[in-house]
């Protein structure tokens, strides 16, 4: 075979390889159509999108390493790992979110009366009643739900437009929320909204001083046809163990009944006003609005001691006269233990300075 033929054949291979390697980049660079929609209108469209039915595949990546992997492994994984989700959404109280792993699955089937959680790994089904307050769960990380929640209290002057981008093969209009509160530890929230339906397709939360998002969740596939009811509903299989639900309401009532709080919570902390939350016990105070929130909860002594040792062992923990503090992305956490009174846990999306100020205000120490 001549050298000429050899060169030609290898040229064919090289050309084939070049085309294949360039393909993802070319598809990724397809321009997105922007539309002239004001940011406030986009927020309103997002707020009205809870009833839009869809099914899809979403991936969220969290960078919040909370030192709670022993106590709350589900929450720790959810906020620090890559989570792949299949979503079937018929409405706000009828949807199913499956967290898909290589060899297993955890499905949350929500209906009007509560939610079934199926875990393949343990072959268990758990029925939970709807609760006013609950721990973060996979459905909260679905871009549509998270975007709706984060934009829900955004003021007009906190919002701006940031062009358009293609998400899950659709044109998504960008809206950026920069919280106005000086105490905010969230630098910005970028939400990419489907122009036609108002569904948030991707959400990025960036902490103060960070370059990569602390939380990034996006659809990779989206289908706007209504999924069949049979796919969303759930009946526990015959050989599954059915577990009783977690009694969040009971825990909250128990917390409210305890005489834990000798300190009266102030009307304002760290420059944030106190707000009322349905279902929260009176001893728990919630401050702020939008994406700048601070919660104050009294802790029984046993729980405080356990939390103190967990926090102290966490990397980056700061211990001073105000208490033990850690920060995970935009989330700050401080355990305040004033002398001669019970312990307090302060947690929220506020800056370390604001957190220290709030702790000082509660203990009466100079900040």
């Amino acid at each position, binding site marked *: 075979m001549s050298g000429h033929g050899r060169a030609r054949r290898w040229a064919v291979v090289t050309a084939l*390889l070049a085309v294949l390697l360039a393909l993802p980049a070319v598809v990724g660079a397809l321009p997105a159509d922007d539309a002239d929609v004001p940011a406030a209108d986009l927020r309103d469209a997002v707020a009205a999108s809870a009833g839009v039915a869809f099914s899809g595949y979403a991936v969220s990546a969290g960078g919040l390493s909370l030192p709670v992997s022993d106590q709350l492994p589900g929450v720790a994984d959810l906020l620090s790992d890559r989570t792949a989700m299949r979503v079937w959404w018929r409405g706000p109280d009828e949807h199913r979110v499956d967290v898909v792993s290589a060899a297993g*699955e955890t499905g949350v089937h929500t209906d009007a009366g509560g939610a079934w959680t*199926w875990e393949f790994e*343990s072959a268990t089904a758990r029925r939970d009643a709807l609760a006013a307050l609950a721990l973060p769960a996979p459905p909260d990380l679905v871009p549509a739900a998270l975007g709706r929640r984060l934009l829900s209290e955004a003021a007009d002057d906190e919002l701006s437009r940031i062009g358009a981008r293609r998400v899950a093969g659709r044109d998504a209009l960008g809206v950026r929320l920069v919280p106005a509160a000086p105490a905010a530890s969230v630098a910005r929230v970028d939400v990419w909204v489907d122009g036609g339906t108002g569904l948030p397709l991707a959400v990025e939360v960036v902490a103060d001083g960070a370059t990569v998002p602390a939380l990034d969740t996006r659809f990779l596939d989206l289908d706007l046809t209504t999924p069949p009811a049979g796919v969303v509903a759930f009946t526990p*299989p015959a*050989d599954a163990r059915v577990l009783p639900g977690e009694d969040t309401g009971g825990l909250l009532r128990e917390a409210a009944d305890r005489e834990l709080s000798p300190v009266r919570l102030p009307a304002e902390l760290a420059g944030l006003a106190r707000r009322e939350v349905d279902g929260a016990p009176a001893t728990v105070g919630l401050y702020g609005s939008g994406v700048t929130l601070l919660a104050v909860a009294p802790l029984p002594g046993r729980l405080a001691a356990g939390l103190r040792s967990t926090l102290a062992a966490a990397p980056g923990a700061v211990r001073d006269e105000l208490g033990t503090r850690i920060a995970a992305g935009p989330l700050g956490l401080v355990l305040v233990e004033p002398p001669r009174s019970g312990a307090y846990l302060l947690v929220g999306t506020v800056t370390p300075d604001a957190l220290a100020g709030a702790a000082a205000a509660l203990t009466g120490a100079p900040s």
Partner: protein
Amino acid sequence: MIGVELRKTFGRPRTWTTIAVLNALPVLVAVLLRITDLAPRPGEGPPFLSAVLTNGQLYPLAALAIVLPLFLPIAVAVVSGDAVAGEAQAGTLRYLLARPVGRTRLLVAKLVAVLAFVLVTVVVVAAVGYLVGTLLFDAQPAAAGTSVSGTSLTAEQLAGRTLLAIGYVAVSMLGVAAFGLFFSTLTDSPLAAALGALAVLVTSSLLFTLDAASPIAPYLPTRYWLAFVDLFRDPVLWRDVVRGLALQGVYVGVLLTAAWANFTTKDITS
């Protein structure tokens, strides 16, 4: 030409020895499970192994999952690496090409023989798995099983999805076969070709576990190997299965073109 190569592959005792050895591990695991009754918890150990104690019909899947990460690719790499380099080492490649057949045709015949080996191996592992599973464990012919999503699957659905999974595992091995065949045209040593294909696999498996490599993860040849589990979700999650098929297609296409470009222009000296 193709018939000659097929007869050559399946006429060799070592081909059948390889397949027999491949089946030894799942059979050993099944016997141990039967004796101890200690199945891994669902989600731990190889996929589906936890479910076989209650439904032996799932054992073909468990058997494939047991050999998929290492044994099966090693066998495919050895056979495909031997395809051309083995003839060169034995000194028979010159005589093969002295016959009036094109080199492209010889390459295609070698490829078909390797593909046939992959298919036969996977089907034999699944068949032996079925026999062992139904002999050693309870079979549930009427009411089948529970999907990964917690819904019930009928026996027909389960059988259909098992067949799809067997096909998918076979296709997943094509990338390995293509690497082995390509390296086999580069060297005169079958061992070097097989080790080259295995080195690619080890690299791919290692990179897949590394977060820093996530931008290239979708292009790793082993990325979608476990996606056959997605066939047992309800509804079936086709996303990774389709991507896995396409990715294997791309690897086979590119590597075979490269093998063709190399082999048809190579000086054959042995």
